[in-house]
């Protein structure tokens, strides 16, 4: 019999403007509280001056919270079996007021402050960052690489973020109304949260998946297929089938027109919407209580999913009154719903469960399946259930592409040499290697770099075969500067004109390069962007792909669903550029 380590949520700490910890936030939600009704201009869910988190920057909040949850559980970051994973979209981007801001500095500061044996990882995957980071943590625990992982999510709302969302016309001036017929946009919110993910605990992370819908960089899929694939893959990993009872789905539910519409379609594709004789799996969104907390949202909401399972209660969607999405999903309305024995333990199951999903810019989607067993067993071995987790034997082939300094190398051979200045270089490289695409010139420079590198990597034969979508292909990239080049442009526009350009703002997320690559190559598998300091052996030498990126790519290769992974380094800032892409492919 095959055994495997399981990953559990052992403890949580979620701080929001309605509660200083998870329990307080959960109780406030049960009581229907929100600060959005009384929010001043902009309708932001912000910490009040009375909160201990008021005015604290993102980096400090992560350190404070990660420290607190570790102390409470007697975990020490100096222990090499402990890892911190930070989930954030922009970190302390307001620091741009004082010049350049390196997102990777958050990891360095946290390492120093907490005395970490391992350099903390940063996942910056737009609005799915929190769920992404949790999926990464789950895989690490199951692989036995770490015993305890703290996932810490945090973002603060600054002019940078507010003005950008405003230019997208996605903000609501009144409290948001997820899934409602009269919904008119999202509210931004501040929060910070930690999950302690461990090889023991009460709530198991039974399945997890990250996908891309390869449709558009800001508009969600028209069909909901990407999110559906994430739900399907997570459920198959958890139970071996999509057709297994689920107590509730805590979806992203931002209350923008298109997000909620897309989610309803994905849930229907999963067979979880209402049908004749079936009321559908209850669906909720917590945005009406705390707004959209960006990089923190997945972490906060997973913490609250754990609370809902623990208390056997499903929270209603605050702000929802009239069904307003295309598919008949079962939105939880008005008051909390108890998880009764009828739909759970009574059916002969020994557990209750939920699915948490998120979707974001760059076309990314993520889902996790959380399960609470009636009588928690704390042993950390399990029979290997889903096929998603099974190790796939394989013979791997590798290819390596480097773009830097006016040169493109493929597997050590010079493929192309052009001017070293980025603008003329990438233009020539694009014309030589890529088929014409109107969208290319609209991309920011980070995306242009990744786009050309990926286009070269998928050779002609492969491209022809790739007319169909690639659910079996994953991309994992990293850099140290995030999207700093576009961040600076966006910030300059705000400073000079007081307004933002949506075409610039959309690129202020590093995972947009994954989105552009996925759209062009129809890649629908995992896509994750890490931020980490540059490893550069000598000045003038090329940076190295960090070991953890290679390791993570190979963890993905062990999944049956993955046939190839593109992994590497992709960095652009102020005419300094470097893309090192490796492709690992299973030949079997």
């Amino acid at each position, binding site marked *: 019999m095959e055994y495997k380590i399981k990953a559990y949520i052992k403890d949580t700490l979620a701080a929001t403007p309605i509660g200083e910890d998870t329990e307080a936030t959960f109780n406030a939600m049960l009581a229907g509280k929100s600060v959005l009704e009384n929010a001043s201009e902009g309708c932001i869910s912000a910490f009040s001056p009375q909160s201990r988190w008021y005015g604290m920057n993102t980096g400090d909040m992560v350190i404070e919270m990660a420290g607190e949850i570790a102390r409470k559980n007697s975990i020490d970051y100096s222990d090499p079996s402990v890892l911190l994973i930070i989930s954030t979209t922009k970190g302390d981007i307001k620091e741009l007021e004082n010049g350049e801001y390196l997102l990777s500095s958050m990891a360095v500061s946290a390492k120093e402050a907490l005395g970490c044996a391992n350099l903390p990882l940063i996942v910056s995957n737009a609005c799915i960052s929190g769920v992404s980071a949790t999926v990464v943590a789950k895989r690490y625990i199951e692989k036995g690489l770490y015993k305890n992982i703290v996932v810490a999510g945090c973002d603060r709302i600054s002019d940078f973020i507010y003005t950008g969302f405003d*230019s*997208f*016309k996605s903000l609501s001036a009144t409290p948001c109304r997820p899934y409602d017929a009269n919904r008119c946009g999202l509210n931004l919110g501040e929060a910070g949260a930690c999950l302690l993910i461990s090889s023991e605990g009460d709530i198991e992370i039974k399945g997890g998946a990250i996908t891309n819908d390869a449709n*558009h*960089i*800001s*508009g969600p899929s028209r069909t909901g297929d990407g999110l559906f694939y994430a739900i399907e893959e997570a459920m198959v990993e958890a139970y071996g089938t999509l057709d297994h009872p689920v107590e509730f789905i805590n979806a992203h539910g931002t209350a923008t027109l298109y997000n909620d519409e897309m989610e309803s379609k994905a849930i229907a594709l999963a067979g979880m919407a209402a049908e004749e004789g079936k009321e559908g799996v209850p669906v909720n969104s917590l945005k009406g209580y705390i707004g959209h907390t960006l990089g923190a949202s997945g972490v906060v909401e997973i913490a609250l999913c754990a609370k809902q399972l623990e208390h056997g209660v499903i929270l209603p969607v605050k702000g929802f009154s009239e069904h307003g999405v295309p598919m008949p999903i079962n939105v939880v309305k008005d008051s909390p719903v108890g998880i009764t024995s009828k739909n759970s333990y009574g059916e002969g199951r020994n557990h209750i469960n939920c699915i948490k999903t998120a979707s974001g810019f760059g076309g990314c989607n993520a889902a996790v399946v959380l399960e609470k067993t009636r009588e928690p067993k704390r042993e950390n071995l399990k029979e290997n259930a889903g096929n998603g987790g099974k190790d796939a034997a394989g013979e791997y082939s590798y290819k390596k592409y480097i773009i830097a300094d006016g040169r493109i190398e493929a597997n050590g051979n010079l493929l192309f040499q052009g001017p070293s200045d980025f603008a003329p270089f990438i233009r020539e490289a694009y014309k030589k290697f890529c088929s014409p695409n*109107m*969208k290319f*010139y*609209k991309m920011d420079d980070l995306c242009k770099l990744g786009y050309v590198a990926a286009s070269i990597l998928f050779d002609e034969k492969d491209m022809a075969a790739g007319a169909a979508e690639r659910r079996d292909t994953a991309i994992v990239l990293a850099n140290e500067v995030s999207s700093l080049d576009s961040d600076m442009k966006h910030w300059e526009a705000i400073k000079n004109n007081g*307004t933002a*350009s*949506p*075409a610039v703002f*959309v690129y202020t997320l590093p995972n947009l390069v994954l989105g552009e690559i996925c759209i062009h190559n129809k890649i629908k598998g995992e896509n994750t962007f890490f931020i980490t300091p540059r490893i550069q052996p000598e000045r003038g030498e090329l940076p190295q792909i960090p070991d953890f990126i290679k390791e993570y790519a190979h963890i993905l290769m062990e999944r049956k669903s993955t046939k190839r992974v593109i992994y590497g380094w992709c960095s652009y800032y102020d005419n300094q550029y470097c893309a090192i892409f490796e492709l690992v492919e299973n030949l079997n």
Partner: protein
Amino acid sequence: MEEIIRNLKVQIIESLNLEDITPEEIDTEAPLFGDGLGLDSIDALEIMIILEKHYNIRIADPKKAKEAFYSVKTLAEYVVANREEQ
């Protein structure tokens, strides 16, 4: 009208980063979105900014302006109509 059409084309090329395209290559009557120039929702937001910045026309509800956004010609007509009202 001709001048507005010409200006709109230049402004669209500039703010939408349509490199390798000249104003002459944009068909005045062809659809801007979907087929035609292949613009998307982000481009629509950028065109709204063009209207605001260069013609002082604010569109509160983009859905109501859908017909105006069909082609450069309809856009120019919209500009003319809404300027006269001011």
